[in-house]
């Protein structure tokens, strides 16, 4: 079976505005330095790294919120690396994103129903209200939530709305960028279990960006470890945790505080 995503020699640089001279162009900052990997269909694929490692930039390039400066990204066999916006639009329905901060990614002036319905209207779906109801059902929110505003919801509920909005479009791929790092452990467990169920029931492929290896361990079948815009390790999760090869992976593992006062740590 061919992979859903094929990424070859992916490079991305952004202008470094902090060093921009008064006149003239800002110097370019290399964020992604030639990445190669594939994402198989149906996988839950983890991307892990410290702040500034380029994991979010990679995610944004995969769903083409950013345009790569080199290399190639193929989605379901189609080269989307430099595709123009109008050509991308029908494809966008097929790869969706869930954002880290649900408060700033949900329009505060819209009700939950409108928030979930808007992308479906843009993509010309029919029977939108019925689909909204179904999406809410999928993420375990009662129908009454449709009439609420984002500020009336808890963090976990808001993140569920973000998930509902993404799955309502019946995508093949979802990118989840640090979606549980703002939640406490209990809501975190709920949201992760929900994601796992959705991936299984809807046949989704999921890329899960996180800095928390404990969460990755629980959820993902494969992990890509990033440092300074490069891939330092790309392996099956079980193998990676059994014997991490890159020193940086070891460092990340050792930094996790396990709930055990006897673990040598500080």
């Amino acid at each position: 079976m061919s992979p859903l995503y094929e990424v070859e020699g992916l490079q991305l640089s952004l202008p470094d505005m902090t060093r921009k001279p008064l006149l003239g162009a800002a110097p370019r900052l290399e964020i992604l330095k030639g990445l190669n990997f594939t994402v198989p269909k149906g996988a839950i694929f983890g991307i892990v790294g410290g702040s500034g490692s380029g994991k979010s930039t990679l995610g944004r390039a995969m769903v083409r919120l950013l345009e790569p400066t080199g290399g190639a990204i193929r989605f379901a066999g189609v080269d989307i690396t430099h595709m123009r916006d109008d050509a991308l639009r029908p494809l966008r329905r097929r790869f969706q994103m869930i954002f880290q901060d649900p408060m700033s990614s949900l329009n505060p002036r819209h009700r939950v129903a409108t928030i979930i319905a808007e992308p479906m209207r843009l993509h010309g779906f029919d029977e939108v209200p019925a689909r909204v109801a179904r999406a809410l059902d999928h993420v375990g929110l009662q129908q009454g939530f449709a009439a609420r505003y984002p500020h009336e919801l808890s963090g976990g509920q808001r993140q569920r709305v973000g998930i509902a909005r993404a799955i309502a479009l019946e995508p093949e791929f979802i990118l989840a960028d640090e979606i549980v790092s703002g939640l406490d452990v209990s809501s975190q467990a709920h949201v992760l279990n929900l994601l796992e169920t959705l991936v299984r029931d809807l046949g989704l492929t999921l890329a899960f960006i996180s800095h928390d290896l404990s969460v990755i361990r629980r959820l993902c079948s494969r992990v890509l470890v990033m440092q300074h815009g490069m891939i330092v390790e790309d392996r099956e999760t079980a193998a990676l945790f059994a014997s991490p090869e890159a020193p940086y992976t070891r460092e990340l593992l050792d930094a996790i505080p396990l709930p055990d006062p006897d673990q040598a740590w500080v």
Partner: protein
Amino acid sequence: MSFLSIRGLELRIRGGGRLLRAVSLDVAAGKVQGLVGESGAGKSMIGKAVLGILPQAVEVVRGEILLDGTDLMKLKPAERRRRFGATCALIPQDPLTALNPSRWIGPQITDRLVDILHWPRDRAEARALQLLEEVHISDGPRVLRCYPHELSGGMRQRILIASAFAAEPKLIIADEPTTALDVTVQKQILKLIAALQSRHGTALLFVTHDLGVVSKVCQSLTVLYSGMVVEDTDVRAFFRAPAHAYSQALLAATPKYTDPLSSLMPVQDAVIAAVRAEVDAADAKVDR
């Protein structure tokens, strides 16, 4: 003898529901006390009550906050500020919003020393430089003349830690000081807080929702649910066998990479229902 002692503190939204339910909590001199609970449990409200920065809409119904034997609630605001500024400090959660974006780092560390402790400015600046060194910032003179946006999240959090220790406080309240940071930086920052705490013998109230972090830095902990203390115990005893069903559920929800299958159990509805019933029973007793 505890340096901070909270006795039966009850907070309420004016004309609304209870936020804290007869909370008692002690922080011994030179010890680290953890305070854990889900979002909305009232963890931060305790810190705010101690610091005297409760939102307008929240009122203290009853209870005492004893700082070194003196009840803070009975002091006039000015007296409270004077006493507090000299002996207590806060390490806030978000290092970006806690610093004034339009001022240099330097004065933000030294202001308190100059304004409340009446140190001469040059002595305060020397102290700031020394503190930056203690938190492993080597180019202190440059950093003192930086704006917050010029520094990374980890650097900013170190600056807030340096600033908290500046006046050699006897009590520090750390409100989720590492939640915004990634694991490797979190480890550095926690090591730093632990080292400074033991070197200066500070009493530390450590507010967090991460039981992993608690097991590393605290000696005892208080578990809060819906403004009620459900467990108050020694850290070793807690992680060996949490007594309350809610604590057990909270521990089970904490991810452990060494044990992926047993971790991340969401807190079951039955456990929530049971602890809610306890809360309601306690409320009924108070209302009667």
